[in-house]
């Protein structure tokens, strides 16, 4: 048995042996926590519209997003968000709360390296790729829209 074969056999043996994430409990956790966050968003929007009926639905939605972002950042700073995230997984990552956490958590982590080279420079180490993908995708969509 040569080295390559041995390594392939070993890696196959390891993948067969290792514990895998159980999909159904993870999906369930993500579903109910994610659903709850979305309901909360709807609730905030409805409250905005209830308090000031002259607001457009779009403005109310924006307020709801801002509230969720602030809440997630606050919970990140208080050290609570990571526990919810460890339980809910995609349930907290997919809504806007995940984006907020991905920017707030490196900011907290790297503040000891200084305001400029720590906090400000490292703030986007997790969210950076998301922003780049978003910008590139909107450029492509914009070009398509221009020529159709």
């Amino acid at each position, binding site marked *: 048995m040569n080295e390559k074969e041995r390594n392939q056999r070993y890696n196959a043996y390891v993948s067969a042996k290792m514990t895998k994430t159980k999909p159904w409990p993870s999906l369930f956790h993500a579903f109910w926590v994610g659903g709850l966050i979305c309901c909360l968003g709807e609730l905030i929007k409805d409250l905005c519209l209830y308090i000031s009926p002259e607001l457009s639905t779009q403005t109310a939605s924006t307020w709801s997003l801002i509230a969720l972002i602030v809440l997630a950042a606050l919970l990140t700073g208080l050290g609570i968000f990571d526990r919810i995230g460890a339980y809910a997984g995609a349930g907290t990552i997919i809504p806007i709360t995940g984006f907020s956490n991905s920017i707030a*958590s490196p900011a907290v982590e790297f503040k000891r390296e200084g305001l400029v080279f720590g906090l400000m420079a490292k703030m986007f180490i997790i969210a950076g790729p998301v922003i780049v993908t978003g910008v590139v995708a909107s450029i492509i969509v914009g070009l398509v829209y221009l020529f159709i």
Partner: protein
Amino acid sequence: MNRLGRQTIVFKNKPRVVGSYTVVGPKEGRGNFAKFFDKILEDDLFGEKSYEAAESKMLKFAITEAIKNANIDKTQIDALFAGDLMNQIISSSFAARKLEIPYFGLFGACSTMAESLIMGSCYVDGGFARYAACATGSHFSSAEKQFRYPLELGTQRPPTSQWTVTGTGCTILGNDDSAGIFVECATIGKVVDWDVTDANNMGAAMAPAAMSTLKAHFEDTGRTADDYDLILTGDLGKLGSEILMDLMEYNGYKLGSNYNDCGQMIFNNTQKTFMGGSGCGCGASILNSYVYSRMNKGMLKNVLFIATGALMSTLSSQQGNSIPAIAHAVSIKFGGK
């Protein structure tokens, strides 16, 4: 020549363990070995401004207290061998700043406890030092920051992951005959890489290295697993130690109930560490507390300590490289002259 076979060295003058000390974090203090650790921190920042500084302070504290435990003065320590997981081993070098002891910085990742013990034993055995200090440690929060994600990021840890132990340990070696524990021989490991690329599955990456060193140790010395009361690996974790047992059986050596792993021992099942503990501090804190105390009480006489280390960096992992690993074995015995 004080050698046996290809990889094993024998210490004829029996360098003795004259003192030891361990410092661990709060989570480790709630684990299975709480009563054995010398100091359990209430706050894992240890009064410092950063986790890196806390790790360094823990290391310095362990070294200073181990010297006190050995009942000697630090001017009698002729060499300090220390290492850690941080880039450029800052925790060890920064700890050595104020100690004023001739210093060697080591990097063997989580194998550093065995590596430092071997170097210290060589120094004492060869008469190059009256006393040598061998120390290492790790910190969960500094390791997470360097190798993984920010602490407050709401991610899920994969089920094969391990929890870096916040802990430091130091052994003082010397030629003092009144001490019962001595380092008898050691097997130096080769770097082994079986093409595991998953940095969240260190046990699987390091198990082949542990197997290679253990097999070399048995071949060089003509011993079997039955010659030891305890064969203890550093931080393979639950999965890694099961793999090691399988690999050893495949090679014709059976590891029985005398085999265990510091990583799978240190935390209890309610602490959500998945495969158990890891890091330099994992093996260091168990060896310098539990193992020595059991040996001094005569409950263990022959112990083979094999610390395993994964020698990758975040850069090498991002560039798609597999994880090279190493393991060093140290045979520690209890007995008279």
